[in-house]
């Protein structure tokens, strides 16, 4: 693991450098980018070499504070999760080179780089932690460093609120994790991860549920997702990219890890994960559809994708429980694959959204439009990212979803519960896929196509070179994985190699299918080229003229008459109404000659409102009521003491 630690050291240096050199703005950024990129490449190399040449899992231990050891182990699961960490993070840092362009905020930028580096390191450490204290330590460092990244723009009230919400969820989730670990310790008496399998099965269930809540609050499962749509828009875009693309995956990693460690082939785990995954996926995408804030929409879309990943995991777990090797194998592999894919296209999309925000100064879809012509690279890469995230071939998103479909179809032959759950998994995947298409056609179609709805959008221009470069790279990766999926899927297969309970399944049949998929994708592209050529021929030497859009008889259409995101989604949202209430603010028409009226609709997150109305508000009320305890009268204070004596003597 020496290479691994070396890479982390380089990354930390990359983080500290800006703090030292913050007076030289550009040099600081460049130095930081180079160092972090170098460190990440080194780490990526290490992780990949471990994945590709499976050896005995590398370990490293270090005594800590006399009673603990800091223990690290890099097995295939860790190595697989390290890949997105070391792949996306340097790209995000590179992206930030042109994104963070306020020399007057040099020191704050330096701090941002510092915590960015710490975040990368802590995520890597989470992935490699091999005992309770190590994991908890890395996890907490990850939480706090990401918190500072979120509140970068702290003058903004929304940012502060977002940071607060995130902070609470991070720490609350950590508490659940600690509880889960502590419960395990109470049976094993050891901090090591290795003994987890030995505890009684009923306890395992409790441990799993606690850990699932803890990890889920980081990953963003429904209803613990509510910090995501606040934190992601608040953070700078390269941070959103890392958080959404990589950091929330650490929650998924945790779920996988705890499942692997508990090693219990019980159906109930799969049921929990699968059902939560379905709810998360469907509601996530519906909320995404209902939101008009690009980054908020992307945050909800992350929730949706976490749902898809959880469906994969759940299917895998059911496969393990029912002894259906293929189902288990492909379920997990699909989840892994989707983790990898999502990290790529989601960071791409966030970077695209960041570029838009950077130039058009707004995140609201209803104020954008026509950006494709003004920001050609951003627009095209965003389009590719949207296609990938909608799971459409020949782009990367499809591969992961296909694996999960494939796994779920393996469960169709099972009986009763397993069958119904597999069927539901397939249906929800289909629904999610359809809605994701609707959602991203909305973003692409309304934000990037058509005419700009506001001046801000009209005056947007293409972003800086480093931002373009990263987006092009990621977009290319989306296409590459879609067209040549085999090496990447093999990587996912390698990734799950160290999962216990999987049995030895030979995925060769599937590799054939995969090659066929690649061929189909290639064929499609070929066909597309042929038809395009054909189309070119048809237009050869023909009159092609330009004119205004046909306004259906309306002679003076304005840009404000374009369809808005709100109306685009309205009927679909309506379909899911009980789960997705819509708040409408309409000033109405009062006078005979009505003045200006306003109409505003907003999709309400049921999880958020219910948590607020049913839990937080009453709790606050109760706490406020209890404030009379400290009323200031010394006589009664002494009365408290007397009362305590009396009570204590009664219980003597």
């Amino acid at each position, binding site marked *: 693991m020496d290479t691994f630690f070396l890479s982390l050291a380089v990354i930390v240096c990359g983080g500290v450098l800006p703090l030292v050199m913050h007076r030289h703005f550009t040099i600081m950024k460049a130095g930081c980018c180079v160092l972090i990129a170098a460190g990440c490449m080194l780490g990526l190399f290490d992780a990949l070499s471990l994945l590709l040449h499976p050896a005995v899992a590398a370990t490293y231990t270090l005594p*800590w*504070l*006399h*009673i603990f050891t800091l223990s690290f182990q890099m097995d295939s699961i860790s190595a697989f999760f390290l890949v997105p960490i070391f792949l996306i993070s340097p790209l995000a840092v590179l992206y930030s080179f042109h994104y963070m362009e306020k020399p007057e905020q040099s020191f704050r930028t330096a701090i941002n780089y510092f915590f960015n580096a710490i975040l990368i390191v802590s995520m890597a450490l989470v992935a490699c932690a091999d005992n*309770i*204290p190590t994991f*908890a*330590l890395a996890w*907490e*460092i990850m*939480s*706090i460093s990401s918190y500072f990244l979120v*509140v970068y723009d*702290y*003058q903004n*009230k929304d940012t*502060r609120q977002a*940071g*607060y919400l995130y*902070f*609470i969820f991070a*720490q*609350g989730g950590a*508490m*659940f994790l*600690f*509880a889960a*670990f*502590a*419960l395990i*310790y*109470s049976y094993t*008496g050891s901090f090591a991860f290795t003994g987890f399998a030995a505890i009684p099965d009923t306890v395992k269930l409790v441990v799993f549920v606690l850990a699932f809540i803890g990890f889920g609050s980081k990953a963003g499962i429904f209803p613990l997702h509510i910090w995501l749509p606040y934190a992601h828009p608040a953070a700078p875009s390269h941070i959103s990219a890392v958080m959404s693309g990589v950091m929330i995956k650490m929650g998924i990693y945790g779920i996988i890890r705890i499942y692997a460690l508990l090693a219990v082939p019980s159906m109930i785990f799969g049921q929990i994960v699968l059902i939560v995954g379905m709810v998360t996926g469907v509601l996530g995408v519906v909320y995404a559809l209902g939101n008009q804030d690009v980054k908020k929409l992307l945050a909800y879309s992350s929730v949706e994708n976490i749902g898809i990943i959880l469906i994969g995991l759940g299917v895998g777990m059911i496969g393990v429980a029912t002894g259906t090797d293929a189902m288990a194998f492909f379920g997990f592999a699909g989840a892994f694959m989707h983790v990898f894919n999502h990290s790529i296209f989601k960071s791409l999309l966030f970077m695209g959204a960041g570029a838009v925000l950077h130039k058009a100064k707004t995140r609201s879809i209803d104020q954008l439009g026509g950006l494709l012509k003004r920001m050609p690279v951003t627009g095209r890469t965003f389009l590719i990212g949207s296609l990938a995230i909608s799971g459409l071939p020949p782009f990367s998103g499809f591969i992961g979803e296909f694996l999960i479909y494939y796994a779920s179809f393996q469960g169709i032959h099972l009986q009763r519960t397993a069958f119904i759950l597999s069927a539901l998994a397939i249906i929800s995947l289909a629904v999610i896929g359809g809605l994701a298409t609707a959602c991203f056609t909305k973003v692409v179609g309304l934000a990037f196509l058509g005419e700009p709805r506001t001046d801000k959008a009209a005056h947007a221009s293409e972003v800086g070179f480093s931002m373009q470069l990263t987006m092009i790279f990621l977009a290319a990766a989306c296409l590459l994985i879609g067209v040549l999926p085999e090496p990447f899927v093999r990587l996912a297969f390698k990734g799950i190699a160290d999962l216990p309970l999987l049995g030895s399944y030979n995925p060769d049949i599937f590799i054939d299918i995969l090659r066929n998929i690649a061929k189909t994708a290639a064929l499609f592209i070929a066909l597309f080229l042929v038809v395009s050529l054909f189309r070119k021929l048809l237009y050869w030497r023909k009159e092609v003229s330009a004119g205004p859009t046909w306004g259906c008889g309306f002679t003076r259409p304005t840009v404000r008459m374009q369809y808005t995101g709100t109306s685009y989604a309205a009927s679909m949202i309506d379909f899911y109404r009980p789960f997705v209430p819509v708040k409408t603010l309409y000033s109405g028409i009062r006078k005979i000659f009505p003045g200006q009226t306003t109409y505003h609709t907003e999709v309400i997150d049921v999880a958020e409102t219910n948590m607020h109305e049913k839990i937080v508000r009453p*709790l*606050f009320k109760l*706490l*406020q009521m*209890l*404030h009379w*305890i*400290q009323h200031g009268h*010394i006589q009664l*204070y*002494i009365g*408290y*003491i007397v*009362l*305590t*004596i009396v009570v*204590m*003597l009664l219980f*003597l």
Partner: protein
Amino acid sequence: MLELVFLIPLFAGIMATFLPVKLGRVILVITALLHVQLTGMCWLKISAPMFDDYFRATPEGTLVLLVTSFIFLFISIYSVSYMRETEMENEHVFIGCMLFFLAAMSMVTMADHLIVLWIAIEATTLVSAPLIFVHRSKEALEATWKYVLICSVGIALALLGSFFITLSMDIGQVDVPLAFSALQAVAANLDPVWLKAGFVFVVIGYGTKMGLAPMHTWLPDAHSESPSPASALLSGALLNCAFLGVYKTHTLLYAAGLGTYSSNVLIVFGLVSMSVAAVFIMNQTDYKRMLAYSSIENMGIIAFGIAIGGLGTYGAMLHLIHHSLIKSSLFLSSGNILLGYGTKLISKTGNMAKLLPKTFLAFFAGFAGISGFPPFGIFISELLIIIGAFRSGRFVSIGIFIFCLILIFAGAARLVMRMSFAQHDEDILVQEKMLRILPSYALLLTSAILCVWLPESLYQTIINAITAIGGGLNG
């Protein structure tokens, strides 16, 4: 001679009271330095007690003494600068009382005799009272009054408790000196009923001083109204001393086979304290009060941790060290904030990150530390306490414990973020000075270092301190 540890500050205090202020400041810092050395000697067992009927260097006492001495050094440096800034009226009294306070606290840590312990703890109350009302504002007077009266009443009850323990000796036909170390050996012969009764009164008595709810009522007032160095001392050192009284009695009960009873009592007090802290930290309007309630919470955590045994006890001892370091640092920062904004109201502060960047760093780091984030030690101690509580099978208690932690974190985070980041248009009254910042940093840094590297001898001291109640790593 062990007694020098409290005699030297005593004489220094007398000198400082009557000498000119400028000399007094020098005496303060020099005494603090000297005290650290004496503490070191005591820790390394170089000095032996002269009156060994009354005093003894127990591991737990040494531990508390170490912490007290260490933070006193930094607080004294801070207060020199602070006093210069605030132009205090009776500064020589303030300096004198700080030294007396140090003397009294050192005496508490060394006391072995039941009644001597009581005397010392009562003495800490009396000599710290002037520290609180040094500003003589109405609020400060009120706080002092409540502090003195409630603590005196509480501690009087502890005296009653000590008498009950004496009685349990008589009934159990035990004839040994009335000292914890002696009683420890013969604890099994003590009369259980009176021992328990004694414990109840001692816990209520010293618990009042320690800030255990519902006897905590003086604490937020006193901590918020006293000048910040005094608050830091109260919170970082005094509460530990009171805790020592509770802890020693708990040890006695454990040795007598009544550990379950005393543990349950401490757990209840610990959880009630945490709940009360949670109630008041949420929607708090005054940042010093917030810190004060956080002290109540942390004392609750320590009581809880001590009670659950095993790893939890180790965690509680670590918690004691780190809480003192971090909380005193927080109070010192709060002094800077008070100087900077001229108000204790959270709603009238804001944008510390820009206006008081150095203080912001210390304050926010302290907040992160007190909330259990690495690289500060409370992360480890809380983890250990949670693990220990599960290990001992107290699932309901730990549920409440965790719930309170989350609530308190939620409450405090909101306020701290408000102070750090919110809009604030007015200018700062008093700029930061390095002399008032460095002590905070030093204390935080110590906590961070102790989270990475714990000296072997300190580790041994902690282990020795907790073996008496079956604490340790194998529990």
